[in-house]
């Protein structure tokens, strides 16, 4: 990493020296905020096969997703990477498989894919990890062009394909998916984004581009489709319950989804980013008089369906977080170049305002196309920050655009005391100067140091693992929440904490980003406070129990079980 003295002085004065230098009050050489861990150091040698063909079939351009998960419950985050595979337009000439890497607890990983039995069978896209059977072991759902696969965790380092029994195959082209408990019955349900109707016998080729070659079609030319909502029956099977609801009526081209509670009514809502058609905001209205669950699609009136110019954008990645610290969930959507990304701030009345300009996000993203992204507190100062992974979908764009490139840089935004997001990418380290064909992005603390790390899937390339050095100056508390009456992953829990005189709260959303799944633990940043003075966990329904803790020591992970406290 090369920084000029002037750059460092500016950074130090802007963000505080302790956030920039590796260690509290150390006088050593400055370290980048995030450091790329090369395959030679991590042992992650797997490379994504995008199957790029002269015909440029669109599924080639959209993967891959990735995940942090603790598949063996040893307290260390493992890594799952999704690959392409056989399809009706591609027969691999050599074996292509997903990858599951076990965390060796020393910064390296071991490939245990074959033993685990999660190699995949279709043209994989993304993944959603969740403990759908409440047995305490994470299960893996893989979306695909073709069919999805649900891998049930056997508790012994292996998985079993239970897709058919579970009835969640979802034929077609599925992209992002999210586990959440929409009816608060204590079991995780599943929402699966469907992209476009790509089922034609003759795959559409969009003809020659300006350099006389086939190119990836803009999805506008394909028919939209409805996404699927599966209710967890509690016996290992699921029932598709979207039929007859607003979810089935809303024909879209879903790429990203986040489950969150927009109106703080205790029911998880869904925000779906669609490509070239309007986004969807499905409000969870609870059971109707006939027992059927009511979903209301309100994106237009909420101001999150279209651009401010009334045009649908090419929504890809999404996320939700309480960006402004007012207890209400704000939204984010990454779009394609020249559409600018959206920072939707919650007006607390089921409407939003796009504050992308005010945050400087619009200007910074004007020429970028965003996929994976996450609101998270990378420096543990207590406020949500933002990381964006970018890349243009058209691999030939460099040939006919003067400014837009196929490979694009990551962007890192730090939330300042002014509650605004500040683009600090230029100063965040060499990883942010590199250009990637980035797609999925997952966050997780793979080395258990309380600093949330980042994993990025790149199209046709090796995954990028970024180790977080930026949080070392601040204290933190890590929480593993275990639901008992509520869903075991405690999706929908609200965490309130007070430290150093500052009160903060966080809703445990699920999903977000693109095709990817994150470390389910929550890391609470407390800045220079020595401990958390007060901690409350508001468990989601059905119990809605509130548990309180005081004087919780920092810089460690604790395990809280619903009704049993810290165990």
């Amino acid at each position, binding site marked *: 990493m090369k920084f000029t003295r002037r750059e460092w002085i500016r950074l130090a004065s802007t963000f505080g020296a302790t956030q920039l230098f590796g260690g509290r009050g150390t006088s050593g050489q400055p370290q980048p905020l995030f450091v790329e861990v090369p395959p030679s150091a991590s042992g992650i040698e797997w490379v994504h096969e995008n199957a790029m063909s002269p015909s440029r079939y669109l599924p080639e351009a959209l993967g891959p997703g990735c995940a942090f998960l603790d598949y063996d419950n040893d307290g260390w985050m493992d890594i799952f990477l999704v690959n392409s595979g056989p399809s009706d337009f591609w027969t691999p000439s050599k074996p292509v498989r997903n990858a599951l890497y076990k965390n060796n607890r020393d910064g390296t990983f071991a490939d245990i894919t074959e033993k685990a039995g999660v190699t995949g069978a279709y043209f994989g896209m993304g993944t959603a990890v969740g403990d759908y059977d409440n047995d305490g072991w994470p299960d893996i759902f893989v979306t695909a062009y073709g069919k999805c696969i649900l891998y049930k965790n056997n508790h012994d380092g292996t998985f079993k394909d239970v897709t058919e029994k579970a009835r969640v195959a979802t034929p077609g082209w599925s992209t992002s998916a999210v586990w959440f408990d929409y009816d608060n019955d204590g079991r995780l349900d599943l929402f699966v984004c469907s992209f476009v*109707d790509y*089922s*034609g016998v*003759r795959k*559409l080729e*969009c003809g020659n581009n*300006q350099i006389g070659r086939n190119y990836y*079609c803009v999805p*506008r*030319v*394909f*028919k*939209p489709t409805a996404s699927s909502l599966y209710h967890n029956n509690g016996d290992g099977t699921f029932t598709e319950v979207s039929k007859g609801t607003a979810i089935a009526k809303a024909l879209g081209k879903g790429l990203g989804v986040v489950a969150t509670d927009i109106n703080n009514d205790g029911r998880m809502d869904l925000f779906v980013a669609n490509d070239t*058609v*309007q986004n969807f905001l499905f409000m969870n209205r609870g059971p109707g008089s006939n027992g059927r669950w009511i979903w209301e699609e309100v994106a*237009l*009136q909420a*101001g999150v*369906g*279209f651009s*401010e*110019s*009334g*045009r*649908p954008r090419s929504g890809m990645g999404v996320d939700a977080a309480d960006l402004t610290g007012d207890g209400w969930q704000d939204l984010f959507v990454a779009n394609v*170049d*020249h559409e*600018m990304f959206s920072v939707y701030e919650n007006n607390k009345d089921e*409407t939003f305002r796009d504050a992308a*300009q*005010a945050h400087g996000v*619009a*200007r910074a993203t*004007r*020429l970028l196309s965003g996929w994976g992204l996450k609101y998270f507190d990378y420096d543990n100062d207590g406020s949500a920050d933002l990381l964006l992974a970018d890349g243009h979908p058209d691999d030939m*764009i460099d040939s*006919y*655009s*003067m*400014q*837009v490139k196929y490979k694009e840089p990551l962007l890192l935004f730090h939330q300042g005391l002014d509650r605004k997001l500040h683009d600090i990418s230029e100063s965040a380290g060499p990883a942010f100067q590199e250009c990637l064909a980035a797609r999925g992005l997952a966050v997780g603390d793979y080395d258990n140091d309380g600093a949330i790390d980042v994993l990025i899937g790149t199209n046709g390339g090796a995954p990028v693992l970024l180790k977080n050095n930026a949080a070392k100056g601040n204290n933190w508390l890590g929480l593993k929440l275990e639901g008992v009456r509520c869903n075991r992953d405690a999706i929908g829990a609200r965490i309130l904490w007070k430290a150093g005189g500052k009160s903060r709260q966080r809703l445990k959303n699920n999903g977000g980003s693109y095709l990817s799944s994150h470390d389910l633990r929550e890391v609470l940043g407390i800045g220079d406070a020595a401990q958390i003075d007060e901690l409350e966990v508001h468990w989601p329904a059905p119990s809605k129990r509130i548990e309180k803790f005081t004087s919780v020591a920092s810089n460690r992970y604790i395990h809280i079980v619903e009704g049993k406290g810290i165990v």
Partner: protein
Amino acid sequence: MRLKRDALAGMWKSAFLLILSFGTIARAQTPQELVQDAIQKQQAGDLEGAIAEYKQFLKLHPEATAAIHSNLGAALAGLGRFEEAVPEYKTALRQSPALAAARLNLALVYYKMGRVAEAATELAKVHSEDPSNEQATLLLGDCYLRMGREKDVIRVLEPEEPKHPEDAAIAYMLGTALIRDKQVEKGQLLVDRILRNGDSAEAHLMLGSAKMNVGDFAGARDEFAKAVALNPNLAEVHVLYAKALVLTGDSDQSSKEFKAELAVDPFNFDSNLQLGATSRQEQNYEQANRYFTRALKTRPGDPGVRYQLALIALDEGKPDDARQMLEPLIRESPQFTEAHVSLSLAYYRLKRPADGKREQEIVQKLTAEAQAKQPGAKAQ
């Protein structure tokens, strides 16, 4: 800009012919000496002095002839005082509707003010009365081109083209209109004619337009860049280059080119619209309003500009203002999907959910129709 300079030179000359003819009439009495002195000052370039004397004369003789008002208008226009010149020309024309030179001058003032539509109205009258007036014809074609009325450009200039086969300005305007009107082959013939005369800005502009029409945006961009280099004052050269730059992803340079166009022609419609939209996106509403106001002067009532103004109202939390702008807009343009989206949002903001839902359903219907027209819909 060659086209504008030639045509405008003709216009000013006609103004002085008018002055001289008046001078011949008014000579004997003292007030007439006042006018004579004003004319001499005007001819000598002392426009302030001439204006003062014309105005003095008008105080003494408010019933003065059309020629005096026309001369005063010309002197005011010569100083760039277009807003004051307009009523003088209008008075002259009320008194003598057949005063073609005054009408031509009024059109010229409108043109200079960016009120292209009003200029075209006056020029059309001149052209109708005297189709042989080449200056009026040429300017009328230029106005129509700026207004996006390609078929009118063709109607006006096509009969002129055989009479002036070597006139690059006519070939340029007519060729551009033909190409934009999808009559590419006919337009290409005019391009070839210009090309025969060497490496000209006009030729590159027309080639660029042709490439834009077939979707070769990078090729168009390169042609326009050459045209800008050869003649940066050519009509619309910057705006076309800017559009090609937008389509090839260089929005920074495109903004510079839109601004360069405004430096040459402050009332260029596309530049004002585009820069206004950019300013609105950047939430610089004051600047956006300035651009849009100028765009509306060029194309009064343009739906695109009115829509942008409605968006500003929505952005600024004035949904009822937005509603009032959007309702007539969708009555005039029922297929304007974005306007339906924004009107729906305005209704929801105004707590009129039934109206909001109705507009939303229209959006869905229009979107589905558009989707069905996509090539992929057929391929599947």
